[in-house]
């Protein structure tokens, strides 16, 4: 490579003159092309390419307390608009979705607070978000009833976590709910670590009250062939990762199982690669496993997903325009919620 090729494109300085739309600001980031600004701009380009390809399945991996912090409506809308095809999430995010669907709330708090004082006031803290204990208790009571109904209707039949999520969505009437939106739009939701959340504790209440007879049966292994079939049925696969952890690897492993690898990847994280944990692992590391194609369109944004992801979505929606319509790109005939 020659020196003139190395020094091809000068940094253009960010100009803010008068009003700017979100996408215009992202264009300014692109002109700079540097540090986080350059990566956010690249992430928007990659997401736009994913949704413009009809045969690309767009997976969203959701880890971290994104629903308590305020991303619930955004994710539900993306499902309804088919700008996400498949959601892979922690159980906790769906627990907090159900809390709000049942009338509970998350409250603006502060990170510098006496946590023992919060304990004595039956208030839980998620960094600077507070959740009243009552909202969890009301969730427990309502979901035990729902688990009972699901167990009675399914009579010992094993459900995958997607079946479980749709069964929940069927019974939650709040149209702003992610679970409800997934049920209504037939968007698969995988919750691979479903028991590692309040959903697991609620199972214990449900099963104990029934002396562990005729209980609800959810089998996360059942998800594996389902998500592999979705990957296999798509000519291209793209993933947007918020955080990482189990949801990120669930998507990546499915792509590996199909021997095709992921074509587009955006990871938004603040974790570091040096610990060896998946949430901080670089996308180059993912290539080494065959989970991401070597020539994949990819970027990793080091930043707070509460800032980065809404900017990405706003920018891409602006580019697509109001009249843009996209069909859900999931080809797996056996996946359909029960009416």
């Amino acid at each position, binding site marked *: 490579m020659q020196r003139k090729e190395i020094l091809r494109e000068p940094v253009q300085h960010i100009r803010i003159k008068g009003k700017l739309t979100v996408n215009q600001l992202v264009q300014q980031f692109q002109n700079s092309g540097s540090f986080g600004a350059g990566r956010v701009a690249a992430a928007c380009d990659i997401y736009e390419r994913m949704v413009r390809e009809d045969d690309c399945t767009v997976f969203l991996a959701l880890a971290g307390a994104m629903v308590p912090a305020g991303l619930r409506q955004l994710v539900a809308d993306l499902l309804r608009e088919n700008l996400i095809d498949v959601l892979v999430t922690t159980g906790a995010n769906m627990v907090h979705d159900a809390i709000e669907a049942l009338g509970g709330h998350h409250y603006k708090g502060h990170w510098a607070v006496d946590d023992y004082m919060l*304990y*004595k*006031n*039956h208030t839980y803290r998620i960094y600077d978000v507070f959740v*009243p*204990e*009552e909202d*969890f*208790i*009301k969730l427990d*009571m309502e979901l035990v009833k729902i688990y009972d109904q699901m167990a009675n209707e399914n009579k010992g039949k094993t459900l995958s976590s997607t079946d479980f999520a749709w069964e929940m969505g069927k019974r939650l009437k709040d149209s702003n709910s992610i679970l409800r939106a997934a049920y209504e739009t037939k968007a698969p939701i995988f919750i691979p670590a479903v028991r590692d959340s309040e959903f697991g504790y609620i199972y214990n*209440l449900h099963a*104990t*009250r029934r002396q562990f007879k005729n209980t609800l049966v959810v089998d996360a292994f059942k998800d594996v062939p389902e998500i592999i079939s979705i990957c296999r049925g798509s000519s291209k696969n793209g993933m947007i990762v918020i955080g990482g952890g189990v949801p990120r690897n669930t998507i990546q492993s499915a792509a590996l199982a199909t021997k095709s690898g992921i074509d587009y990847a955006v990871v938004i994280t603040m974790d570091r690669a040096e610990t060896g944990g998946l949430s901080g692992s670089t996308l180059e590391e993912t290539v080494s496993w065959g989970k991401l194609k070597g020539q994949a369109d990819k970027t990793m944004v080091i930043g707070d997903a509460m800032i980065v992801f809404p900017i990405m979505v706003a920018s891409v929606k602006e580019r697509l325009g109001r009249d843009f319509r996209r069909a859900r790109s999931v080809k797996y005939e056996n996946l359909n919620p029960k009416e």
Partner: protein
Amino acid sequence: MKKKPSKHMFCGNCTSHNAYDFPDQVFCTRRFLKNQNAIVSTLWCCEDWYPSAQECHCIEETLKKQK
């Protein structure tokens, strides 16, 4: 025979309670698992009152509210 509640023997002061309608009503896990009504008054005392208290403000806030 039901125990006579002592100064600290209230549902809102045992380890089986969670907040249900703070501070007036608490949720009792023990009663819930026995399919009994699990929502009880914070100042109620059941036969199963557990002799180990949770440090919280349920009782004092209820009493303050009653005054």
